[in-house]
């Protein structure tokens, strides 16, 4: 009888109903609220906002809930929603020197103006499963507040080095509109604005692995964490009809300024160079990985040999997007029997030509 792998509308509908049932889990257990997700799974929410390119903790929480905690699926949901939103324009550049600091550490200076602020961090926790947390119910005692507020001036480490010319100067704003890869396809070589946008949206795991590979010798660039800072920054926008900047909200961001060695070239004296990372939310691993990869991708510009994957612009930018990657990998689940049929015929023909009919089993 003719049976084929074909799914009608009913099969699809029913599959989706089953999915909804599986998502909800045991109905005797209380349903997750968006407040719970946004408040208690902030790491997931921040990652989904960062890679989804949309700063909205509530929608990110909804996406995580709908995706059953599958974060790449949640990123996909948020991205698809994002593409229906109108684009008003570009905000003024964020001034991270004015950040309301929650955490700020430098690995290059023992102390510095504004001091080291440890903030809420997993660093130095002992990774022992906390079985009291499993029992639940306990409200942790609040952290002790410092007697004084953090210093109002919190200059960026890279700016301190810059005063002596030890680090390359920040590229001046050329006044050109910033690129947007969601509106324009890549044109290689891409400018740094588009590269940073791609990396900021890029998959954390992919960038982590590439950054790591650069530390292990595949495009080594001698990094130091000049500074890692996390906190709230104001977003300002200049509406055309007003002509001056108004504050439209605040974002929590993580910024990493990587300071990298540079021995100098024929044109440039020895100087520290920069790698930059900035992501939505509290995402230290991602911001640091992004900064490592950003610096690695500057190899060509700094006359370094381009040999490693992390230094290859097309390789990195074409493959860092997890929504694209997951779509194309998972599309292999779609029927391919027409192509496979062609290949079957060809393999049979080649085997017949080689005097080995397809039916005959291979010798062990």
């Amino acid at each position, binding site marked *: 009888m*003719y049976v084929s792998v074909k799914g009608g509308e009913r099969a699809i509908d029913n599959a989706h109903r089953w999915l909804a049932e599986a998502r909800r889990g045991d109905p005797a257990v209380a349903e997750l609220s968006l407040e719970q997700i946004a408040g208690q799974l902030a790491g997931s929410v921040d990652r989904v906002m960062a890679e989804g390119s949309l700063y909205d903790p509530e929608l990110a929480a909804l996406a995580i809930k709908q995706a059953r905690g599958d974060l790449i699926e949640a990123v996909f949901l948020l991205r698809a929603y994002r593409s229906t939103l109108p684009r008003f324009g570009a905000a003024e550049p964020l001034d991270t020197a004015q950040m309301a600091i929650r955490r700020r550490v430098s690995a290059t200076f023992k102390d510095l103006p504004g001091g080291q602020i440890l903030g809420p961090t997993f660093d130095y926790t002992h990774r022992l499963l906390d079985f009291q947390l499993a029992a639940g119910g306990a409200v942790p005692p609040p952290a002790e507040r410092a007697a004084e507020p953090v210093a109002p001036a919190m200059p960026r480490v890279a700016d301190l080095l810059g005063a002596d010319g030890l680090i390359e100067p920040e590229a001046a704003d050329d006044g050109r509109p910033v690129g947007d890869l969601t509106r324009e*396809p890549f044109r290689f070589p891409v400018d740094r604005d588009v590269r940073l946008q791609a990396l900021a949206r890029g998959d954390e795991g992919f960038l982590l692995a590439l950054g790591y590979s650069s530390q292990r010798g595949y495009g080594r660039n001698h990094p130091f964490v000049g500074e890692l800072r996390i906190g709230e920054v104001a977003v300002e926008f200049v509406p055309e009809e007003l002509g001056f900047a108004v504050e439209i909200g605040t974002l929590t961001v993580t910024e990493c300024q990587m300071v990298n060695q540079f021995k100098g070239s024929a044109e440039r004296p020895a100087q520290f160079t920069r790698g930059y990372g900035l992501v939505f939310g509290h995402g230290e691993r991602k911001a640091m990985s992004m900064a490592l990869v950003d610096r690695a991708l500057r190899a060509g510009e700094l006359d370094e040999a381009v040999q490693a994957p992390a230094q290859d612009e097309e390789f990195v930018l074409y493959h860092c997007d997890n929504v694209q990657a997951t779509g194309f*990998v998972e599309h292999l689940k*779609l029927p391919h029997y*027409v192509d496979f*049929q*062609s290949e079957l015929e060809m393999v049979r*023909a080649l085997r017949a030509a080689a005097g080995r009919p397809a039916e005959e089993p291979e010798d062990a």
Partner: protein
Amino acid sequence: MHEAGYNFAYLDEQTKRAIRRGLLKAVAIPGHQVPFASREMPLPYGWGTGGIQLTAALLGREDVLKVIDQGADDTTNAVSIRRFFARTAGVATTTRVVEATLIQTRHRIPEAPLAEGQIVVFQVPIPEPLRWMEASERETRRMHALKEYGLMHVSLYEDVARHGRIAKTYDYPVMVAGRYLMSPSPIPKFDNPKLDRSPALQLFGAGRERRLYAVPPYTEVNSLDFDDHPFTVERWSQPCALCGATDSYLDEIITDDAGTRMLVCSDTDHCGARRAERPAEECTP
């Protein structure tokens, strides 16, 4: 009626216009890949987002849409895409080639001849025919600009040297209007001759790779070959087990544990129409 809360055919009008501008350029330069600002769709990349965006940009309220995947109207992804447009555009849909004004397809060209005025939209995974030989987009763009296609010929020659024949079976490279090397998308090479001088407008969309390209009606499309190894298409020793067709592309279906196979048309509309024309007693169940 289409679903409230979304624009007709999902995409906003600005985006559709941008895509149509890209399509006009593509039609003006047959076979040339035009970059376009592909949007993130609510369907996954690799599942037809390029084709979906082209279809969205082209659909009008009077259009009749047919969607096929592997030649069939009822494969899951074809059903999903057809429902997407039924939902967001409320257009009429059909499974009949003759009734359709716009046909979105993955991996096949219908067996029934196409007519003037019809549009075929192909879903394309990798638009660059040279990609397997040259990974860099900067390099392949330069090769197209210089019409430098030696790499592809060498690749086909290597097949001949190694296997005694050109071993490409699908996504078989073509030259369009004697100028651009083009990927016909992963259609079997069986379908390549249908691309040549087709009366229909053939459009190709690659969403993830953000490229679109076109073969305007009656454009010459040649499958690459050598004088001593001319291009040939697949042939089967048996006819379709359902409709008896001897000139259609057949899928092989395994019907039991012993590996018994039957061959049936991949194009379900073609097969169904042929069976409808024949007296019932002649039809295999």
